[in-house]
Each structure stands twice: as C-alpha cells, then as structure tokens.
C-alpha cells in the first residue's frame, strides 16, 4: 500500500539522516569516542523533541478540527516564556541557574501541562462549535501573555533580562543530556497512548454530530487528548525551548505526504517527519553554516515560508 511505502521511506530517511549526523566529518583518534557520544545525545534529543511535537500537533489539530492551529499558536509558547520570566524575576539569576536540572524540568512540565490543559480545555471544551472565535481567543491570549511578559521584563535588570531572552529561543545545544532518559520515557508513553487512541481519533475527526451519533464519549475523550497534547508539548518545550511554527510545518507536511486521514498513519508519519526535519536542519546549521544556536530562527523562517506556500497552493483547509 502506498501509505506503508511512505512510512517505510520516512523511516529509512531518518536512518540515513541519523547516519550522516553521526558519521560526517568524524575526527579520528581519541576524540572520536567523545564526539560520537556527544552526537548520539544530541541526536536522541532532536528525535525526541521532533516526535513529541509532531504527535502533539496532529492530536491537537484533530480536536480543533482545523489544520492551521497548533498548541504554540494558541498561546502555549507565550505562556512558557512568561513562566520563565516569572521564575527569573522570583529567583534572580543565581537562583534560576542554581535550580537543579531535574527539578526545573519536572516543574516546568508539570506546571505547563496543567496550565495549558486548562487553557486548551477552556478554548476547545465546548467542542468544535465556534472555531473562529476559539482561534482568535488563542491568538489574543498569546499576545496578552507576551505583553505581560514584557511588563515583568521591565522589572528585571539587564542581566536577568538577557537570561530570559536566552530562554525564549529554542536552542538544541542547551539540551541537558541528563534529561534524556526522562524525556524518552515520557515521549514513548505519550506516543503509545496516542497510538491506542487512533481509532477514536478517526471517529472524532468525522465531526461532532457524527462522532456523537457513533457513540463516542466526547466529554471524556477530548479532555484526555488535550491533556496528552499538553504533556507532550511541555516535554518538548522544557527540553529545548519554544519553536512556534515547527508543529505547523510538520502537520502540513504530514497531511500533504500521507494522503490518508487515519491517525494510525498520521501519527507515526508526523513523528518521523518532525525528527528528520530537526536533524537535517541542525545538520545544516551546524556543519554547513557553522552556528549551532539558531535552528529555531531558521525553522520559523523556512517553516513559515513553507506554510505560506501550502496556503497559496490551496493545500491547507
């Protein structure tokens, strides 16, 4: 079947890209082992973040019945940056830096998952009744969080502000390897949960009336999906920081490539495409352009362009 072929091709693509990542320009001698280890860690991080974001975005778009929304656009990223600002304001630079990595990660995932569940629940809880209003609300809330963030930023001194600035851009070089196991577990659990929901997600995608008629318990199912979205998005963001349009690109590419509406196909495809995009992107930035830190800017740029391209071609509805 064509779908299987595409999935296999994607998996092969990821394998190929990973191989290049690990082996390209490898130094010989004693440094080799060290570099391999480092690259393996970074690769794991990229794949994790990609898979989490890809899966979460597909889930979110099914619940929102809309292909142009993502958790990030709906205010998630702004909420995250606000949280960082509040942390720095409350703890100061020294306190912020002294936070044990574990605690910060767990705390961030917990708080963000809770807050964003509330946010998405409030926005999407009424079912997909008034989509335009819900979209706008998310966008407006995002702007509001950013304004609040700017306000609190005024309270910080320039050094503190610089720290917050750092936290506002996703950077794959700041991924702490000790978080990888936890991230891996969370992503795996999330992915498996999503896979088990695939059938019900297909029914949900038929629209509210049809889903209810077929006996899907919307009131219980939708919050579950949103909670999963919140957790997976929080994990990805807590690991490397926010990349606003990444999920959008991945979702657009996934739907474009997989001419299928079945979540059993979409979810793995999204995870693979996201991982490949991140690894390729980081490859380009690091090895071709020589700067490690600005993948997120590049993704915003390239991703945004791609989205507009899809829009113009009429591929997004």
């Amino acid at each position: 079947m064509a779908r299987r072929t595409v999935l296999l091709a994607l998996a092969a693509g990821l394998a190929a890209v990973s191989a290049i990542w690990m082996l390209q320009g490898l130094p010989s001698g004693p440094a080799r082992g060290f570099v391999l280890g480092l690259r393996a860690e970074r690769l794991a991080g990229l794949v994790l973040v990609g898979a989490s974001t890809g899966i979460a975005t597909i889930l979110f778009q099914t619940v929102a019945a809309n292909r142009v929304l993502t958790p990030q656009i709906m205010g998630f990223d702004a909420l995250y940056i606000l949280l960082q600002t509040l942390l720095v304001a409350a703890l100061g630079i020294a306190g912020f830096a002294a936070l044990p990595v574990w605690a910060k990660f767990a705390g961030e995932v917990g708080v963000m998952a809770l807050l964003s569940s509330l946010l998405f629940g409030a926005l999407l809880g009424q079912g997909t009744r008034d989509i335009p209003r819900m979209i706008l609300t998310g966008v407006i809330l995002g702007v509001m969080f950013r304004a609040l963030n700017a306000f609190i930023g005024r309270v910080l001194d320039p050094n503190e502000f610089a720290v917050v600035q750092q936290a506002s851009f996703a950077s794959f070089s700041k991924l702490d390897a000790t978080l990888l196991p936890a991230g891996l577990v969370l992503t795996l659990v999330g992915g498996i949960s999503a896979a088990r929901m695939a059938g019900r997600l297909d029914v949900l995608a038929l629209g509210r009336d049809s889903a209810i008629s077929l006996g899907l318990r919307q009131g219980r199912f939708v919050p579950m999906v949103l909670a999963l979205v919140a957790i997976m998005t929080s994990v990805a963001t807590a690991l490397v920081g926010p990349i606003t349009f990444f999920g959008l690109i991945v979702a657009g590419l996934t739907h474009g490539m997989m001419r299928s509406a079945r979540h059993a196909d979409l979810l793995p495809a999204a995870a693979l495409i996201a991982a490949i995009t991140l690894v390729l992107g980081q490859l380009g930035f690091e090895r071709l352009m020589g700067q490690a830190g600005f993948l997120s800017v590049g993704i915003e740029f390239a991703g945004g362009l791609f989205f507009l391209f899809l829009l113009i071609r009429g591929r997004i509805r």
Partner: protein
Amino acid sequence: MRLVPAGLAVLALLACASLTVGAASVSILDATRDPRAALILMESRLPRTLAVILTGAALAVAGVVLQALVRNRFVGPETTGTAESAALGLLAVSVWAPASPIWAKMVAASLAAMAGTALFVAVIRRIPVREVMLVPIAGLVLSGVIGSVATFVGWQTDLLQYVNAWLMAGEFSGVLAGRYELLWVAAAAAGLAWFAADRFAILGLGEGVATGLGLSPGGVMRLGLAVVAVVTAMVVTTVGMIPFVGLVVPNIVARVMGDNLRASIPAVAVLGAVLLLACDLLGRLVRFPYEIPVGTILGVVGAMIFLWLLYRRPAHG
C-alpha cells in the same frame, strides 16, 4: 455620529489629565507665569500628549483601511507583517547607510512596510473568502517569517535591541518636542484615508462591485497600502509598534456604526486616540512615578477588550 462629539469630549478631558500627569508636579495654570512649568509643558507634556493622540488615531484608521482592503475583521498592522517589514527596512538602512538623514530612514521604512503589506495582500488573495480564520493566521505566520529575518540580521549586526524596541515595546516616555513630529505625517496619511473613505468601503464590497462602479481596484488597493504602510512605518520608527489599536477599535466602531467608512472613520480616529491616551495615562499612574509602556498596557487591556467583544454575543461573522 453621536460617538464623535462624545468621544471628543472624553478626549479633551483625558488630554488635560495627560498634561498634568508627570514626574515633575506642574500645574497648567502656572504655565503662563512660571517659565520652568512652561518649558516642561511645551517640551515634554504637550508633545507627548499630542504624540499619543496622533498615534492612536492614525493606527486605528490604518486598521480600518486594512480590514477593508483584506475584507476581514480580524487583522491589524501588527498581524500582517507590516510592522516587521518596517523594522527590516530600518535595519537595512541602519546597516548599509547609517549616516542617512532621518527622512531617508523614514522613506526606507515606509517602502519596506508597503512591500510587506503588499506581500500579505498577495498571499491573502489566494485564500478562499469563506476561510475567514486563515487570514489572521497567515498574517501571523508572515509576521513570524519576516520577524525571524529581522531578528537574525539584528543578531548578526548587534542591532537586536533596536529591533526588539521597534517591534515589541511601544512607548511614549522618550517623546520630546522635536522627536515626534513624524507622527503628524502618520496623521496626514490617516486624513488621506478619510478623503478616500468611500473608495475603500466600495473595495470592501468586492473587486467586481468596485469595477462595476467605475473604480480601479488596483489603484484603490495601492492607495490603501500606502496609507497603512506610512502610518505603521512612522509609528514603529518613532515609538515602536503598539498592538491592538488597529485591530480592536475598528471592530468596536463597526458594531455600533457599521461599515460606512466615510461616517465611521472620524469615530474610529477619536476612539483610537481615547483608547491609547487612557492606556498611556494608566501606564503613567499605576506605578507613579515610574512608567509602564503603553504597549504593555494595551497588550493586556486590548486583549481583554477584544475577548469581551468576542464573547459578548454569539458568533459574529
């Protein structure tokens, strides 16, 4: 037109209040006798008050013109890539011809803003009209794309701080006599919009209708773009981008007065000035004698007003 006289009265009140609020306690009445009071009034308070009024009015009118051009209520100069383009233009001039006189910089910013807005309109035309929500989302993405370019260039050239100030922190605390006069240009552009109001309103009915009535849709579109671009460029350069005014005020006025632009533009201008002046006053009073930038206040207040508008009645087209 009841809005206009009432609005003007409120505006006058707020203006008087604005003239009296400030770090130095100065009474207006003393101005004729006390040279120091007169100085503060003429060099700082009055220019600032005028700047706020001009900006509020001009931005609101630019918003209403933009909404007519794009035939969508949910756009404003901050969600179309216009502000980001203006910033990019400023960046370009600052990098390549840093010694240019101010008027050259303004021209560069305006041209860049026009190009950015034209790009936005070109993208929007490819979206089916019934997909109302795709328009602001596309605008957001375009803003993000252009913004990422501006950020990247800013980072490379060490002008990132300026970029952020242009794009995010709209504030009037730096306004002195001799530093704000460009806003009169913005106001003049807004005035031009009022003269051409009927054309914009007709264009808002569709190109077919416009042609049938003997208008050149392309010509009206270019005029509208010029107005929006000039206003945004002047505002961004002088005080930085102020969110929400161009988005919220036209919507409020349209609810009361409908879309007859010739009648509603004066109301939009007055209400825009009132809103901005009220928020500016709030920013000056909340933590007296420190100031909170009006962009921040609006980010919160504007968001709340817009949400109230959205949820006050069931779904509005």
